[in-house]
């Protein structure tokens, strides 16, 4: 969206929806390339945006998301030793975000008990990343819009 075009809040909400939908599609495409089948959740499913069809793929998914994070971010000391106990669930889901993630937003993801990874087009706060790490949830932040916008066809 060009900077010089005045946009309303309605436009901005719709734009957030587009970012979110495209990032879901891009993430599913990345997993598919690694042989992991994942699908968009539908309706008001509070468990997350993407469901991993085979729960046994959960740790593979976390490794893929970790690699995606490393691709777009410089490693911090805590991230370079991602050997924390991974969360175990028989309903593994991925959470997709497009705005700054911090505080209660992090807690809500952890409390689902089903989120194994977070993929965000925006920043995750440093304490937030530490909490996700401790909860055994992988994350990838700061995914550039240019990487995933308008990639619906990849699904």
């Amino acid at each position: 969206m060009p900077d010089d075009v005045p946009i309303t809040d309605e436009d901005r909400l719709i734009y957030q929806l587009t970012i979110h939908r495209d990032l879901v599609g891009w993430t599913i495409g990345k997993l598919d390339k690694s042989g992991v089948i994942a699908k968009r959740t539908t309706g008001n499913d509070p468990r997350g945006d993407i469901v991993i069809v085979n729960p046994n793929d959960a740790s593979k998914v976390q490794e893929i998301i970790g690699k995606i994070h490393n691709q777009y971010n410089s490693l911090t000391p805590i991230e370079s030793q991602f050997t924390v106990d991974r969360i175990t669930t028989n309903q593994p889901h991925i959470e997709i975000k497009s705005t700054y993630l911090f505080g209660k937003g992090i807690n809500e993801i952890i409390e689902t008990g089903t989120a194994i990874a977070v993929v965000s087009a925006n920043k995750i706060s440093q304490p937030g990343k530490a909490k996700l790490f401790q909860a055994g949830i992988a994350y990838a932040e700061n995914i550039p819009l240019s990487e995933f916008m308008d990639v619906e066809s990849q699904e």
Partner: protein
Amino acid sequence: MFDISFYAVNGEPSDCVRITESIYEWLAKSSFAKIGISMDIQLHLDGEEVLLPVVELSHDIRQKLRDFFRDAIINESGTVLTKLGDSPSKEEYQQETYCMKKLLELLKCVENENYQYLQRV
């Protein structure tokens, strides 16, 4: 999933309501998106300084948002009661009341005068 966040003047305390794409889409296409205008403001959150687009919850804006969510909850409760019938299963109950619970959470945050800003984008 999406977060609708609420902040005090300096950022903290804050709260957020985690909602599904389906509810966010509904909000985006409703009059909710037309109440107030988001402006970038520097806030202190989780020990970090961040610039976020927020709507200032002036008396007028807060009132309009409160009316919006109250109306939405009344409408939704009618729909939910019709759908649930007399003996819903636990799953049906959880599924059908999800949206109403989220609208109630949003209303509580809007009515909490400790929060001075709303972030929806």
